[in-house]
């Protein structure tokens, strides 16, 4: 499949009143370059999703609602959908609840009206669709529902990676091999969504769950499985969330946020029962089609496999303690993962590894606490000066998980 252009095309005529509402217009489904392209003008820019030719879909607006919703919420303007592209009545009702959740997380996001022609959708297909990047979470969710899942969903712009179109092609090829071996259908959705979001400075961390679920709604499966990234004890505002994802359910499709109660190490342990699952693992921070073996995410997966006595053909194995240095945590989420791995190391009597990881966690906590202490002692004015001196991307982002005043 040809990789789509990663840019967004600005429409010359965005239409009247464009500042007063976010419009989804000109929803089209055309066969192009061996795939079905579902496109629309969303807030004046073309947004495209390219589905494989064997995917069953119609020219409807659902796929565009996810991203458009956030632009409308940031601007506090209505979301208006072209009459020719109807929206599921059930989803229309739920969109209010979905917005309330995001607005509770971040009071800078407003709950806005959605104007659309509604219809009662027919029953869903018999398909069970699972979001699938090849990572530990999605492979675990697939493994847990292997007897039910018929389709795997991969979306361009979601996986980490710096390789652009080539990386996406490699990712699709790898996931296709796995899907074929498993007798499942891979639905690889090419998209320019990343560019669309970047132009609007909307965070993917905020929007990714909604984008996934709205694409799934376009495909009408009976169930859509969204793999959990975090466990129930560490819930925080995040684009894909156990309380938000199921709100995208419709009479046709039940959306399930899965894997919420299993820690990453436990998920990996389950995968170790099947070498085929291990050999396709794609976990890298820097690539979507191969694992670099040198980033923190590759290393913590390789170390977990090492401690469990397993290997992945797609991941350089852990060989020496010097590699542990890659695991020095940079945020609290990493600390949780390190603690899990340290417990596993103790369980398998690798106290040397457990001690090293424990030392990393402790050092991180000392540094973080001292930073917090300094920041609090210095006060808000010093913090503002610091942010001005060292600006981050989120300083100018318009849609964030929490209000700017929290950051």
């Amino acid at each position, binding site marked *: 499949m040809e990789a789509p252009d990663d840019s967004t095309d600005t429409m010359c005529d965005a239409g009247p009143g464009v500042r007063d509402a976010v419009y989804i217009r000109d929803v089209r489904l055309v066969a192009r370059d061996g795939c079905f392209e579902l496109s629309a003008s969303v807030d004046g820019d073309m947004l495209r999703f390219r589905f494989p030719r064997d995917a069953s879909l119609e020219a409807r607006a659902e796929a565009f609602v996810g991203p458009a919703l956030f632009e409308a919420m940031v601007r506090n303007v209505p979301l208006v959908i072209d009459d020719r592209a109807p929206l599921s009545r059930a989803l229309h009702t739920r969109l209010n609840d979905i917005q309330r959740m995001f607005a509770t997380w971040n009071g800078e996001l407003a709950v806005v009206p959605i104007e659309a022609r509604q219809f009662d959708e027919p029953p869903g297909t018999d398909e069970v669709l699972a979001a699938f990047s090849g990572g530990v979470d999605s492979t675990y969710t697939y493994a847990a529902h292997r007897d039910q899942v018929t389709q795997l969903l991969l979306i361009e712009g979601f996986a980490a990676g710096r390789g652009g179109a080539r990386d996406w092609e490699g990712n699709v090829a790898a996931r296709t091999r796995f899907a074929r071996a498993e007798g499942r259908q891979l639905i690889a959705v090419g998209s320019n969504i990343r560019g669309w979001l970047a132009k609007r400075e909307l965070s993917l961390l905020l929007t990714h769950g909604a984008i996934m679920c709205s694409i799934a709604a376009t495909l009408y499966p009976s169930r859509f499985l969204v793999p959990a990234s975090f466990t129930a004890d560490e819930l925080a505002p995040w684009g894909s969330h*156990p309380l938000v994802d199921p709100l995208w359910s419709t009479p046709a499709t039940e959306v399930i946020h899965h894997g919420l109660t299993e820690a990453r190490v436990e998920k990996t342990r389950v995968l170790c029962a099947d070498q085929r699952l291990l050999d396709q693992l794609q976990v890298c921070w820097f690539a979507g089609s191969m694992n670099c073996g040198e980033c923190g995410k590759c290393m913590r997966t390789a170390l977990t496999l090492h401690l469990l006595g397993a290997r992945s053909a797609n991941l350089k194995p852990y060989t020496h303690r010097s590699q542990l240095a890659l695991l020095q945590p940079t945020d609290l989420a990493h600390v949780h993962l390190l603690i899990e791995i340290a417990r596993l190391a103790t369980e398998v009597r690798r106290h040397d590894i457990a001690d090293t990881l424990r030392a990393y966690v402790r050092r991180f*906590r000392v540094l973080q606490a001292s930073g917090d202490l300094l920041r609090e002692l210095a006060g808000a004015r010093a913090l503002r000066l610091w942010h001005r001196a060292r600006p981050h991307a989120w300083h100018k982002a318009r849609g964030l998980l929490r209000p700017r005043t929290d950051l």
Partner: protein
Amino acid sequence: MNPAADASSSVVIEHVDLRHSKDGRTLSALVDGEHVWFRFPADLQIEPRADVFLPAALFEAMIRDAPIVVRGEAGISARLAAALASLQAIFHCWNTDLKVVPLEAMTVTATRNLPGAICCFSGGVDSTYSFARHRDQISHLLVVQGFDNWKSERDWKQSAAERGRLAEAQGVRLIAVESNVRAFIEQRRIYWGLVLGSVLGGIGAALAPARFFIPASWTWRDLHPYGSHPLTDPLWSTEATEVVHDGADTSRSRKIAFIADQPSLLDQLQVCWNSTAHNCGKCPKCIRTSAVLHMLGRTSANLPPGNFPNDLRRLAVDGTATLPYVEDLISYATACGAEDMKRKLISIRRRYRVRSAFDEFAKALLGDSARRIKQRVMRREWQTYRAALHSSRTGIA
């Protein structure tokens, strides 16, 4: 009885019995060898099912890693029984000391006893807001003995009487449920904050209305492991009853502002930490309520108005569970343009953050051994619990 005496055996619910008397309908059972009972108003339809005893048995069983067995003909709602594994998985995720255990019970389809909706109602901000918001659906308010200030029989009677007066004035019916379940939980040294949502869910299953509202204490933004939670409460739904964790989309200050527009509800607010029968006006919970009313320029007949911003010093920010309330007050003061209140609140927050950062720094520097020594020297009540919201085995390996 000694809970640890027969640690390996099942936790059994048996002799489920429903008796009618002039005092009410008493549903009782032997739970792990102890008599647990719930007394409902005499005119309510109650089925002799075992659902209501599940919370008492569940946590004991999870602590002991022992199956739950329901003996006799009293069944469990099939939907609830099916959800029990998911419910336990969440509690296990929060606290790995709690194990996921099997349930052996006859399952039945729960039938609806009340066509309307019940709202759990303490008279506090969260429950008053839920009642006000869903006033068109709610037919009954529920108060349960054993929640706030649970040892005082006098407070319970007075509180139930006051909630009853409000219910009558609002044209809804009050259901006052008496029970010894709190005593059972406390005797087993299980933290009530872990169990309370399940106890309410079990009572909801017994009363079997169409909808059962459990008012949220925290917003979606401030979620943390707690016995009443948007992930766990709905799992107590049955074929007859949908359990709704309600109000997590609205901050406490916005809830108070909503209530303030309805004088009859505002004047019955009961928020105090020190009493369930009146508001002391001095505890942090009274203060954070009266602070919002002060910013709104309103008063409640049931709450001393306070002297602001000075009284804000009484706000005790002692952890991540109470910090969101101060954050909320700061947001509200900002929105209201109450600069003096905002300044004081920011200063309180800063003091907490400095203290907390210093504690964290000391803890990180000194490590687990210092924490263990401190716990041994300064033993706190939560350390005596057999199960709380988090594992008692902290540290990293």
